[in-house]
């Protein structure tokens, strides 16, 4: 329920290039630079790093699962599926 409300809110404001937010705030097709991520789960943190989510990497929202979650993002020349919830812990700056 809460998730749905948040999604609706998100649809209202599309983040403009230059503004900062979380990876989960982006719409399909938008590109952003990763600024930082904060996550207290050591295993997940490590995994995000290993999969190439480091500071300064450019990510693009490519595909969204038919049910709205998870999201498929493109980075470093490949595609990675990630849940909206985990994207919330990644800070970004929109570039496109």
């Amino acid at each position, binding site marked *: 329920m809460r998730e749905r409300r948040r999604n609706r809110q998100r649809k209202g404001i599309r983040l403009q290039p230059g503004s900062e937010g979380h990876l989960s705030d982006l719409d399909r097709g938008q590109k952003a630079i990763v600024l930082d991520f904060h996550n207290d*789960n*050591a*295993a*997940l*943190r*490590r*995994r*995000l*790093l*290993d*999969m*190439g989510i*480091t*500071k*300064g*990497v450019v990510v693009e929202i*490519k*595909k*969204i*699962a*038919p*049910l*709205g*979650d*998870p999201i*498929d993002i493109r980075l*470093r*020349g*490949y*595609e*990675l*599926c*990630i*849940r909206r*919830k*985990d994207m919330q812990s990644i800070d970004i700056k929109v570039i496109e």
Partner: protein
Amino acid sequence: MKIALVGNQNSGKTTLFNTLTGTNQKVGNWPGVTIERKEGVIVGTEIEIVDLPGVYSLSPYSTEEEISRQFAMEEKPDLIINIIDATSLERSLYLTTQLLELDTDVIIALNMSDVLEKSGITVNIDCLSKRLNTTIVSISAKKNIGVDELIEIVKKGSYKKNKHDFIYDEEIENVISSIAANINVAHKRFAAVKIIEKDRDYRPLITEEITEKVSALEKMYEMDSEQLIADQRYRHIVRIKEECSTQVDKGETITDKLDRIFLHKYFGLPIFALIMAVVYFLSVGLIGGLTVDFVAALFDGAETIEIFGRETPFAIAGLGPLVAQGLENIGASPWAISLVVDGIIAGFGAVSSFLPQLVILFLCLALLETTGYMSRISFFLDRIFKKFGLSGKSLIPFIVGSGCSVPGIMASRTVENEEERKMTAILTPFVPCSAKLPIIALFAGYFFSQFAWLITLSLYFFAIIVILVSAMILKKFVYKNSFSSYLSELPNYHAPSAVYVFRDVSDKTWSFIKRAGTIIVLCSIAVWFLASFTWTFNYIDGEIYHIENSILAGIGNAFAWLFYPMLGGTWSWGATVSAVQGLIAKEQVVSSLEVIAGLEGSGEAIFESGIFGFFTGWSAYAFMVFNLFSAPCFAAIGAMRKELGSTKAMFKAIFFQTGIAWTLATIIGMIGWMVV
């Protein structure tokens, strides 16, 4: 010489391994875990090669990574072949940079060189080889290009030795060399980097001095050391990639176009349902309808067979009657003939008649997997599974489990979260596996004839509901505090590789035949014995003694009360012992029914025999439900024990499964009892 084959998931590692070793393979398990360990000998050489699990990194956070790391550190391979997917160079090289820190030589097999051009990517191999300072062979594992060259290089040992290039900034390299100089472990450079990362396994080696140096670095770069190392690795890789490869943006790729359809907001799920329906319609409906009676006729003999519900003339003597005749001619005693015909041939025949449809099912699943669609299924169903405390990745074990629960349960290893993994292992046996298909095919085929495929489909949906509801129950009462995530690569669509598909299908089919040929025949003999002799070991000849006097009937009668309500108020020792035999192997249920019906001596088909004539549509459905969801076969129970970690947890799981099965079957049976 011993070689390790290392690479990401979906890098073509398995295909390369198969090409390198041909049929010369040995499949076992890694000690203590149920992840498959494949070893082989490279064709035309005496070089041993071990296929390590697909990993993205050598971090110690997943079992696969731990295994790969341990193997590289402890079993000391002479050489590592690192297979890399050329179309995702950047991510693939991340693992390479870690492998190159080991004190082992590493050569790179750059895979999929045949699809590079299409994807608009070019890779300058000389440049890449120079920058990574290692030998690189361009190959296509699928089309068997460059593999001979790879073998040649390995055989001659004409590859570059691992020289440990400096890839980090000077300040970091300084700290690495100072740590490496002061520790006394193998693979010093690798260890030093892991110490800086504060890796779990290397924490005891961290001294105060090191802590100081590392925090100085962290302050300087404004990120923690784990981030720092990953960041530096990727910086190094990006530099190499920019120097040695070019990429023309080809716009929307074929994969993107296909995903527009398969991951469509509204059509995605219906398409999935349609694909699964086609898979099961083809295997159970079409091929099943065509062949079941035909194969059965080969064993039992027939005048006519039923093809799609139509009587078709097909006169054949059949293996069973022929052998019986032969044995009689040489003067064999009645019980010996019965042993061979009613025990061995009947048991094997009952299982074999379902083989053609199994082959088609295995074929469809292999196609779904190799084309990349399987990953999509887990991607778009994650949202639903998450709600029930599972991850989309649980779906892969479930789908593999529709072939066989054992590899399905083993595949639950890909679920990273421990509680989700255990839940997946407990729930996978609920999926109707191929050994349960004979049960479904038998009952559905007889009682629901042309709607058999619909009943089959309904059982699959029933299974999904049971899985989800059980997941909720487990989540609520057993696995309460799970933190979960879903991180997974979405591979590009590939044209299926004929070699891979053929291999996969023949492996699975062969292992099914082997099971049918060993365990099941043995059990059939045991059942035959118990059904053919009385408690005083008199042979049941059908004149003085009847099958009701058999040992088997006695055992069945002791438990028949449990099955009384689900069979619509019928006391049937035959159905009871058959269901219990599902523990040995699920397909055994069918052969047991067959053997018992055969011994009764009326010569009629199973459900026309006096002993099983009581079955109605309702009790057939209830009986199927019980067999589908109750405790799996011993092999699967063994796999479950390994994944759950203790015998106690295993027994709890079995009790849970059987409890659910009994309750559901009883409810269905009772409804039928009341209504009819």
